[in-house]
């Protein structure tokens, strides 16, 4: 077979393949469907906690010149320049970072600024929304392509896939799912609960729990009476800062005291960026939550 192919054809094929790989590495189709020429990841502006975590996980942390205020992990990012809240970016502020590549969470905005940035000479890669474990894999691969680090991204994606897989294996052993309520904060005696369509809902599902607030859409405050009506068997308290005493606030709610019919309803406290960031730590966070919700299950994911 190989003898019938003339040398120049082989050469051409090799050249074409090489050329193709080179152009794949430089051109990225982002979540908007835009073809972005990304060939210089030397100065990265990373927008979104998940985006930043992925960039760091792929080893490009030292190339990050600026981040948004939702980027809190790893701790090194706290020292980086901040371009503000990701929904309220400013065109000139973003350009002033001197970034050669902008990686942005699906919710970065406002739209006028995103549109103006698209006309600048700086490549802007938008990532997909958090809808499922697959969207995390997709985010990792997209960031990897934009950084020209596909091999590393594929490794990370495979690792995450493996973690999601073992989560699923453990999850299938759950006989009676726990009705859990995820509480974001307690304000004026009312708990802010996570309903459907939230990352919190997705994390509860991954951890093998049923969302006790599935009737709500989005994050909603719930009254004591509604809390009793939801009858959660466990409460997941999310704290934004380590010193926040959200578990104590929840325990003080009259509605909470009426729960469980005499049996104590456990309150599991977890870090907000860790549990709800939906970056590379997501499967581990889900595993840890699962281990706390089901102490008797053998669970390897968290470790």
């Amino acid at each position, binding site marked *: 077979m190989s003898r019938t192919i003339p040398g120049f054809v082989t050469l051409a094929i090799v050249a074409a393949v090489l050329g193709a790989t080179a152009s794949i590495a430089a051109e990225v189709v982002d979540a908007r469907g835009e073809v972005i020429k990304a060939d210089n990841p030397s100065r990265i502006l990373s927008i979104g906690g998940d985006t930043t975590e992925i960039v760091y996980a792929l080893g490009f942390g030292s190339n990050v010149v600026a981040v948004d205020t939702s980027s809190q992990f790893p701790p090194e990012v706290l020292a980086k320049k901040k371009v503000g809240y990701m929904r309220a970016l400013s065109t000139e502020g973003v350009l002033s970072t001197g970034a050669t590549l902008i990686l942005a969470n699906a919710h970065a905005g406002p739209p006028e600024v995103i549109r*103006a940035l698209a006309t600048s000479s700086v490549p802007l890669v938008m990532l997909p929304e958090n809808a499922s474990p697959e969207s995390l894999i997709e985010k990792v691969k997209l960031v990897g392509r934009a950084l020209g680090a596909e091999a590393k991204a594929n490794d990370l994606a495979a690792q995450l896939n493996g973690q999601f897989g073992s989560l699923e294996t453990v999850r299938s052993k759950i006989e009676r799912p726990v009705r859990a309520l995820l509480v974001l904060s307690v304000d004026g005696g009312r708990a802010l609960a996570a309903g459907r369509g939230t990352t919190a809902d997705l994390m509860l599902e991954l951890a093998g729990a049923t969302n006790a607030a599935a009737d709500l859409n989005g994050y909603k405050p719930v009254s004591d009476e509604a809390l009793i009506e939801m009858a959660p068997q466990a409460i997941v308290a999310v704290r934004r800062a380590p010193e926040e005493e959200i578990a104590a606030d929840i325990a003080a709610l009259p509605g909470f005291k009426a729960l469980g019919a005499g049996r104590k309803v456990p309150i599991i406290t977890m870090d907000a960026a860790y549990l709800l960031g939906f970056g590379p730590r997501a499967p581990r966070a889900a595993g840890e939550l699962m281990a706390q919700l089901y102490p008797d299950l053998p669970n390897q994911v968290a470790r």
Partner: protein
Amino acid sequence: MTIESLDLPAVEDGIDRHGLGRRLILAGLLALGLAAVASVSVGPTGLSLFSLPRAISAALSGSDAAADVHARLVLLEVRLPRTILAAFVGASLAVAGAMMQGLFRNPLADPGLIGVSSGAALAAVATIALGGGFAGPWVRALGIWALPVSAFLGGFLTTMVLMLIARKHGTTAIATLLLAGIALAAIAGALTGLIAYVTDDRELRDLTLWSMGSLAGASWQKVMAIAPFALILFVTIPRFVRALNGMLLGEAEAFYLGIEVERAKFWIVVLTAAAVGAAVAVAGTIGFVGIVVPHLVRLTAGPDHRIVLPGSALLGAVLVVVADIAARMIVAPAELPIGIVMAVIGAPVFLHLVIRRGGGLAAP
């Protein structure tokens, strides 16, 4: 007092208010020019006015060298429209405020009284919150224009409904306008709250930011969107001066002075609603300007609308342009909502003036 002196109810305190006013207007024009130059020259990227020739030549030649694109984008597509937009928004809000205070003969009146702000807020909230579902087709059809167009229509239509309620037999009762305005604002506020309740965290965040105002999304299209409404309001100022001055004495008195009070009331409300609706549409709600700028002008130049209206336009424009420079520089590369900056800069100045003047607000 003769009719002629009533025509221009000047404060007889021995100060040459007219000459003073003229000097103030000139000073205002100069300040606006300086503020505009500063606004185009200052920004987090460090590009200054000296890069302007490069930006213009890049725009003309269509050069796509990175540095040329950068200069063109920052100076011509970001800072210049932003500066002009800030001036239009500030001037519209301040003139509208001055006219409302004159119309209602109430120092606390602002454009919010005729329902523009609450109607615009309701429409904006609805667009942000229901864009994914119920209002989906509308939002998709208008793209990034969905929010400004809705806000404008919401504000303007609310005011028109209010006029419909307050107008009977060709006359508009100011008291009815005021009370019905409060009622409509309450209804719009309740609906806004209801929609805000069903939105999620992120949309709520968007709503909060929108309600603090920002010029970060400025573009030439937005300048074009507000320009006609603002310019119509400015060029009609001379036509309302006499009516507003007359109304300082009372509606009946103004009528006996030969002022077509009803026509003036109608057009003041309509044009104000259009200009404020457009300002809110392109920049969100920026408080403080509409209510305080006219008072600042009155405190320095007296209540004559010949000075108060153009003076408010200039001072409003200067104040918003300067506040916007601060908004983009203080926490650069991030950005502060301009409403916050506005209040932080303006409120102490206002308080200082009020205290120095012995606590008396110059009632319109």
